């Protein structure tokens, strides 16, 4: 069980430029601390997040993937976040069939003023992933 203690999950986060990436910047400006297990990739809109980006991340061994966008109704591009929501829901089903826990994929709405929420999301996601353990594909890839 000690390996579980040492396990540090790695999260790939796709954040939209207008809300969630700005929210992550605000967390920084406000010095809100969160676990260093996340790497953020900036996209213009959560609607830009192609399912293949997420699948590639899991394939290469990411323990979790976060897609973060503006709250419904607030999307800078009208409805890109709603597309993201549909894609994530479907993709979760697909993940289940290929043996990846759907909880490893999260969609969150984080506005530009919600630095605190971003930190909370990362805290709880990392905690959940610690429970789930490493991405099962990692073994296969090895």
């Amino acid at each position, binding site marked *: 069980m000690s390996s579980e203690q040492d396990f540090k999950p*790695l999260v*790939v986060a796709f954040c939209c*430029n*207008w*809300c969630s*990436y*700005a929210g*992550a*910047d*605000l*967390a*920084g*400006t406000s*010095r*809100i*601390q*969160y676990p*260093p297990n996340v*790497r*953020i*990739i*900036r*996209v*213009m*809109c959560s*609607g*830009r*997040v*192609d*399912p*293949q*980006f997420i699948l*590639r*991340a899991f394939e*290469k*061994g*990411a323990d979790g993937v976060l897609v973060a966008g*503006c709250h419904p*109704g*607030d*999307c*800078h*591009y*009208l*409805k*890109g976040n709603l*597309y*993201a929501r549909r*894609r994530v829901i479907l993709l979760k089903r697909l993940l289940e069939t290929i043996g990846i826990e759907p909880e490893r994929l999260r969609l969150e709405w984080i*506005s*530009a*003023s*919600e630095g605190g929420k971003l*930190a909370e999301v990362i805290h709880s996601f990392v905690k959940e992933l610690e429970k789930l353990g490493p991405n099962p594909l990692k073994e296969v890839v090895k």
Partner: protein
Amino acid sequence: MSKSGGEEPRIGVFVCHCGTNIAGVVDVKEVAEYAKTLPNVVYATDYVYMCSDPGQELIKQAIKEHNLNRIVVAACSPRLHELTFRRTVSEAGLNPFLFEQANIREQNSWVHMDNPEEATRKAKDLVRMAVAKARLLEPLEPKEVPVEPAVLVIGGGIAGIQASLDLANKGIRVYLVEKEPSIGGNMIRLDKTFPTLDCSACILTPKMVDVSRHPNITLYAYSEVVEVDGYIGNFDVKILKKPRYVREDRCTGCGKCAEVCPVTVPNEFDLGLGPRKAIYIPFPQAVPAVYTIDMDHCIKCGLCVKACGELEAIDFDQKPEEVNVKVGTIIVATGFELFDARQKPEYGYGIYQNVITSLQFERLVNASGPTGGQIVRPSDGKPPKSVAILLCVGSRDQKALPYCSRICCMYSLKHAHQIKEKIPDAEVYILYMDIRSFGKGYEEFYNRVQHEGVKLIRGRASEIWEDPETKNLIVRAEDTFLGKPVELEVEMVILATGVIPNPATEPIRKALFITQSPDGFLLEAHPKLNPMSTTVDGIYLAGMCQGPKDIPDTVAQASAAASAASIPILQGKIVIEPIVANVDENLCGGCGICESVCPYGAVTVEEVGGKRKARVNEAKCKGCGSCGAACPSGAITVLHFKDDQILAQVDALLTG
């Protein structure tokens, strides 16, 4: 993999210390050394402030000396300095889009301050990812588009008026839209203004008249903005003119119609304290001086039509009218509303007659108000001999508004002064938690009011009840200086209600895609350096819609917004980022999914040489990339955020 221009990438990596902001946590030297080991990186270094002149010079020198063709800067957020560094590389002769920034400050050193080891590891990952993307960057050409030389100002309070006049005086066309029948906003309701006590109407009405007469201002009063389309430089705005049932081009404002109108209802402008007719102007100095019929109360008796006579201004069949205008920039100045004091039922507003709000008091004490400026209490119309003013009603309250409304301390001190002035033998109490008299001349005014004999009690009132016989009110509070509970019997209570965002702002906010902060006010681009802009290019903020502020601050922000909104217009053209969708026709199968997901109608499928292919209208495309994510064959993608560029970041992170 595509290597733009066919040349082998030669990447330079520059790691910023940002003083100790980054270097205090991240081992920047180690990160720079690590960068040197990455493929295609031919040069890497660190420097104390990359954004400074010497820092930028360092980049330019390195580009020349090492023949670099891709630049990665690991520093703050690209939202802060991407444009700075794009300019730097462009000055060194590189295409500005051959630059990539790794965010190792806001998203690293500032959020992992107690974990330098992990933060350094994360910085290396982020640099590796940025280098991977940089390797695949392509040169892009920014496009210039002309700017429509006009500004839309939404809201005709003091903020909108000030902004409109500033712009109009610069020679810029302004469309000012106000939802109420007259401009003037909340300020025109006020009697005197703190701390100088000059009369609000006396200083505002000349500006209102200037607005109506200015050749560069088109005023749409009793109108609403219903739709906004486009982007900075080219906004298409749809305005809905609500029917007044009185023709603006014919009404002279003589008022004969209202004299004969038999229907009397409470006047919203006086917050219900005074009456108006069903055909009305809200107050005598209204601009435009055009009457409006309130169809909810009109009985269509036709007396007004007769009184109007030959002018024939009254038109019961008037319909809503749609107006379309094109503007280059937009200023939002939609103001505030008062917190509803009924939400603090312990103070009895709406239950006890003699509990009123501050804005109601403004109407009472106003010479043009319902009582002609006499301070009387509602229950018996007599001047109150004792008044308690309760501060922070709604504000600074975990159960209501967490923020300070910033104006209540000062207007309440002014109210205390006005009561003392008009009823010298009245006892006036102010119950406060803190007096926040922070502006120019404010503390001095506070001292003056104290010397006038106003009694200040430090303690928030807990409850109020009424003596049913006298209709007097008993206010209970803890005097925190004495450490004792106190009970005051007074003849009238004024609740200094806080301010909340105007609910009418919300549909406008959604139409403009601008964000709000957690308190519900509109979010500024930067709280200190850019408080008059939004995060959307070409849209600016003025006044209370951005947060509570007094008149001087509102006017200052309005002028700042007007100045900011005029910049693109005076430049005449703006540069649009070339981050748009792009189709590889060899891969496109013409399925049309991209067309169906595009929110802007920017992608269409057309016949090209007998085959169906997607086509992008770059003027309409805003670069969201929804099409790219939906395309089943990877044929359509967004420049600068191409599939292979994003996948390279993923791969670099997980296989590095």
